């Protein structure tokens, strides 16, 4: 029936990667889409070299928002902030690997948006998030 809900997405939804909390996170942010009840709390452990050593998230919401968060945490783990700051909306959509309609875009981008806010003040964001 569904490319949108392909196995990989459902797998990330059912068994999200890096799900949980960090004891002493360097950065935290809670993002939400109040309109639909999607929420993500992202925690980052950043070392002195500016690399994301540890990442964890908790959340609840639709499959797209949670799967996207799970995939994003895999993507950023072990990466330097400078590289993470170049992540944009297309990278998120590429990881999800599916067509997202405008109505669901907010769900898909919630995790990236949360990440941006978590790193606010630490780094200048380069990637396009295109929140018109």
């Amino acid at each position, binding site marked *: 029936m569904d490319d*949108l809900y392909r196995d990989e997405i459902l797998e990330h939804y059912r068994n999200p990667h890096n799900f949980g909390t960090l004891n002493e996170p360097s950065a935290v942010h809670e993002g939400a889409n109040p309109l639909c009840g999607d929420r993500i709390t992202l925690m980052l452990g950043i070392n002195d070299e500016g690399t994301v050593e540890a990442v964890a998230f908790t959340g609840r*919401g639709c499959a797209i928002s949670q799967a996207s968060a799970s995939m994003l945490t895999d993507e950023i783990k072990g990466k330097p902030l400078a590289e993470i700051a170049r992540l944009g909306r297309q990278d998120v959509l590429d990881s999800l690997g599916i067509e997202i309609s405008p109505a669901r875009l907010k769900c898909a981008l919630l995790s990236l948006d949360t990440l941006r806010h978590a790193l606010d003040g630490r780094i200048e964001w380069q990637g396009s998030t295109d929140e018109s």
Partner: protein
Amino acid sequence: MAIVRSLDPVAVRADFPIFERDFNGRRLAYLDSAATSLKPRVVADAVAGYLTRYSANIHRGVYQIAEEATAAYEDARATIARFINAPSPREIVMVRNATEAINLVAHSWGRQHVGRADTVVLTELEHHSNLVPWQLLTQEKDADLEFVPIDDDGRLVLDTYEALLRTHPRLVSFPHVSNGIGTINPAREMVELAHARGALVLVDGAQAVPHQPVDVQALGCDFYVFSGHKALGPPGSGALWARRQLLEEMPPFLSGGDMILEVHLRRTTFNRVPHKFEAGTPDISAAIGLGAGLDYLSAIGMDAVRAHERELTDYGLEVLPRAVPGLRIYGPLSSSERGGIITFNVPGVHPHDVATILDRAAVSVRAGHHCTMPLHERLGEAATVRASFGVYNDRDDIDRLAEGLAGVVRLFSR
């Protein structure tokens, strides 16, 4: 006793051009009439007719097409009055939608009559459009807002309503039918109780006018509002009905051209009702279109419409729980107390995911909070799925919904 004509959805769909489209080879199963209704060809033709054949401004010109436009617009007003059994078209103010109608009452009547420490009584069911204007009014006036709660079945707790009435509120307002969960409220009884305590009543009829017979005189309320776009009309049409005496006493809402009689540099006299409340050039074609939409519904007969939707509701309440074990349905479970609306949740699946998957099968439902965030807080849910019925729906649409939901369950339990 009149025989209720029965409605033939197949024949009805032939009147709605949108069904000529196919969606992935399937007919559209549109189950979101509570958000807006689809439009019959006669409505589109009425709009196009104005725009192409007599698109003059109204109330001003003395040439032929101006007279034609004015007549068509005022005919629409008369059609609206008849449709809700208002005593006169003079008591119908044409507006863009129910939201505008409510804002009109809040600004025009509310600011004059609601003062410091006064109370306005609403319910936990309110659509944001019948909540936010009253919040702003009571905040501005330092007045109080009280809410009639619902019980766990989605019915208003009338004991609490009566208790709140003892504070002698200035105004009571509630939905005739809840757009969120479908509850049909005991409107006439609530109006009587309110009047006994000296309160005026505004009934939000947005979800009632398109789906059941409405008689504002029998209801006895003071203000009644509805949106044209939910009643087969174009977006940009709608009406406020109010008692003549109230309209006479109320100051204007929006001001400018057409709502005036005489204008001098430093003083102006206002037009008679209802034109006093219609400033500027209105959405003329939308009003004419709404007239055509209401005529279409009248030809079917609102008793037949209600009977049809009630039958679909019964069917839905029966088959949907079979398709989804543990389906949570909100609101009263008997169709006699529920409009053609079934709001539900699939255990473990977010409404957005449900709606997206159903969309693949050309089944359109609404996912979210349906402009009733406080109601959803009360239900303890961030979001729900809502299926709602109209004259073009049939059991096949509900079967497709059930089939789609069974598919959702399978997909998410693999």
